[in-house]
């Protein structure tokens, strides 16, 4: 079975545990960053929807979305703490 040759960086990451952790950290940091942008959009606009549907029976749905966004924010904060050294290395 033919396999795509690994890039020098991937080979380096495979053979060195520290480098591997750094790559994982960079990926984690990047994903957390993108999620934070998405959550900013949800958190920034949900209260407008909450106001609009306040007098409707299904108004709790908007509140549920808000709570989910808050949980998402807590999750990305944890991810960034774990990815911290790698993100600092990339961005610093």
């Amino acid at each position: 079975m033919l396999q795509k040759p690994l890039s020098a960086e991937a080979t380096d990451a495979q053979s060195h545990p520290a480098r591997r952790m750094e790559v994982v950290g960079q990926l984690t940091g990047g994903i957390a960053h993108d999620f934070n942008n998405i959550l900013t959009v949800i958190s920034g606009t949900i209260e407008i929807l909450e106001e609009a549907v306040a007098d409707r029976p299904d108004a709790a749905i908007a509140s549920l979305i808000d709570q989910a966004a808050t949980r998402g924010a807590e999750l990305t904060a944890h991810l960034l703490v774990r990815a911290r050294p790698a993100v600092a290395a990339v961005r610093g």
Partner: protein
Amino acid sequence: MPRVLVVDDDPMVCMAIEIYLQRHDFHVTIADGGEAGLRALEGSSFDLMIVDIFMPHMRGFESIRIFHERAPRVPLIAMSGYAFANLNSPAPDFLRMALELGASRCLRKPFTPAALLTVINECMAEIPTGFAGVVQLR
């Protein structure tokens, strides 16, 4: 009506901030990157800038430094989705670095509209002339 420039390479973030601030009677200009933001800064004057720290085609904290240099009297709020939750970390804190480069306030993404309005009001309150009011949450 206070004029605000919002610069972020994510158009959805720009739009979300624009929608919220327009509801609070701000005049908002959005720019989907550093270059577009600098062009906007050349063509108009603003009372406040909200700028993402890390954007494509701008190395590291260059965005904060450049925007502050181009308009040193305009308060700048730096925002980032890379900011760390724990400020006791030994790793560099991006938001603190942004303050050292000229940002007036910092916001860690994701932020609530209330947090955004709070830092905007804090910035506006520090301007000696011009904007005198405080925008209330509603």
